[in-house]
Structure formats: structure tokens, C-alpha cells
């Protein structure tokens, strides 16, 4: 039995000594944490059995990672929170990969849509909304590099997971995020030059 108030040192000592009860307790703790999240968020409307399968897979991966990285823990948080973070990464990565199983390779030459929303513009505000989108669209096409625009299109407009976009392009997730960051900076400067503030943009696009 593992006391709920175990310190980081207690956990590390027990796990490094390969105490079976400690690994079992950690496994159960991670599993319960993931199930709590999954039951609340219900990705893809999955039922209990499927959620359990997702959680079990993530727990397995997590314990392998924790075993390999015990010496990397820097005591900058509770040990169990650090472990939960590894578990959440494993779980969400799996969920996102499943969503994109049939994915196409990221196309950096994709075009921005004439109208970006699933719903048509509000009839009473159609002119304003179309005018605002036309400006934003033109700036995205003219101000960004092909690389920045391609990543923005894939990740923001196609909602492709950033890890998968990065993998398609043979770059790191951080590099892909940096491209989006650079794109945002360019777009903000360009929008402000056009006299468009956040308030104006939100007012135009709000329903």
C-alpha cells in the first residue's frame, strides 16, 4: 500500500529500487487520472470499453517512459504531476493520430477558402464579414512565406495536429510552432497597417 502523501523522494527511492508495489500504485494512479479525463471529455463519443483501451495503452507507454527517464526528473513539481504529464502526452498523441489515420500529406500549396466558416455569413452582416475576410485572406497570401502559410493552413484551417504537420515536413514541433508564431507576428503588423484592430476583427466575425 502506497501512502497518498508520499513525497517525491519516497516515489523515486521506491521506483529506483524497483519495488513492485510502487510501480503498481503508480500504474493505478495514472490509469485513474486518464480515465477521469476521458470519461469527462469522451473523445469521439467513445464508450467505456474503448476509453479503457486508450487509457491502458497510454499507461503502458507512460510507465516505460518513466522507467527510462527517472533520472531526468528535476524536482520542479510533484513527481506524480510530472508522471501524469507524460501520460497525458501519450494519450493525446494517440487520440490525435487516430483522428488523422487517413490523413493526406501536408500540402504547402493549398489555397485559402473564399469563405472560412462552416456557416454562411449572416445575411445582415454579409458585406462586412466578407470584406474583413478578404483582407485577412489577402494578407495571409501576400505577407507569409509559403512555409508559414502552409503550416497555418494545415494546422489552423485543416486542424491537423501540429506533431503530424511537423512530421510531414521533416521538422520539429517547436520549429512548426515557431513558423506559426512568426506568421502571427507578420499578420498582426499587417492588419494594424490596414487599420484593423482586434476589436474590429472580433466585431466583424462575431455572430
Amino acid at each position, binding site marked *: 500500500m502506497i501512502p497518498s502523501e508520499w513525497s517525491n523522494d519516497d516515489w523515486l527511492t521506491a521506483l529506483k529500487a524497483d519495488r513492485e508495489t510502487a510501480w503498481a500504485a503508480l500504474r493505478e494512479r495514472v490509469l485513474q487520472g486518464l480515465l*477521469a*479525463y476521458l470519461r469527462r471529455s469522451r473523445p469521439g463519443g467513445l464508450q467505456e470499453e474503448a476509453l479503457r483501451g486508450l487509457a491502458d495503452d497510454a499507461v503502458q507507454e507512460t510507465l516505460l517512459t518513466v522507467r527510462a527517464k527517472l533520472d531526468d526528473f528535476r524536482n520542479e513539481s510533484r513527481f506524480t504531476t510530472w508522471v501524469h504529464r507524460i501520460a497525458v502526452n501519450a494519450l493525446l498523441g494517440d487520440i490525435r493520430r487516430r483522428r488523422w489515420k487517413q490523413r493526406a500529406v501536408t500540402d504547402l500549396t493549398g489555397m485559402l477558402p473564399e469563405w472560412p466558416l462552416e456557416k454562411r455569413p449572416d445575411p445582415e452582416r454579409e458585406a462586412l464579414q466578407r470584406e474583413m475576410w478578404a483582407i485577412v485572406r489577402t494578407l495571409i497570401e501576400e505577407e507569409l512565406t509559403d512555409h508559414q502559410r502552409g503550416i497555418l493552413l494545415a494546422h489552423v*484551417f485543416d486542424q491537423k495536429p501540429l506533431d503530424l504537420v511537423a512530421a510531414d515536413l521533416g521538422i520539429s514541433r517547436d520549429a512548426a510552432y515557431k513558423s506559426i508564431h512568426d506568421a502571427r507576428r507578420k499578420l498582426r503588423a499587417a492588419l494594424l497597417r490596414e487599420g484593423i484592430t482586434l476589436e474590429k476583427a472580433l466585431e466583424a*466575425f462575431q455572430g
Partner: protein
Amino acid sequence: MLKREQLLNLMQSIFRVREQEIPCSEFFELLPGYVDLVLRDEDPSKGGASRGKDPSPGLPEPARSQVAHHIVQCQECKEAYEALLQAARSTE
């Protein structure tokens, strides 16, 4: 195609952008400490990050505000934050 909320979020992310932002890898390194602080703030009587025999590790500025900013700028990292918060909270 986007939902209206996603388009609004895109516009907000453009105008909220800072000159310097932490990348996702650094965010993930700092996230556990940030979540500990959030949980402590939710219920200070339990001691949050200092529960058990551990000293409170804390998360000094500017790291704390950098993590908070990344959460609003990166939707996937926001999802990870919410999942971690839920998982950690449920096993208190």
C-alpha cells in the same frame, strides 16, 4: 472550414502574439509545476505543490506567465493542460 469560435480564436491569437514566446517543448517541461500551482490555488488548505513532505517547488516568473500565455496561444497545449489538470485533480 472553421467554426466561428475557431476563426475568432485565430484572430485573437494573431493580436495576442508576443515577441518572445516559449515553444511547446519548454511549455511541457514547465507544465507540471504550473498545474501544481493551479491546484494549490484551487484549494490552499491542501498545500497544493507542497503537499506531502515536498517543499513547494513553485514556478517563478516569467515562467508562470509564459506558460499561461502559451496555453491561450496553442490549442493543443491548452488541451494537454486541461487534461493534466483533470487527471491530477482526480487523483488527489
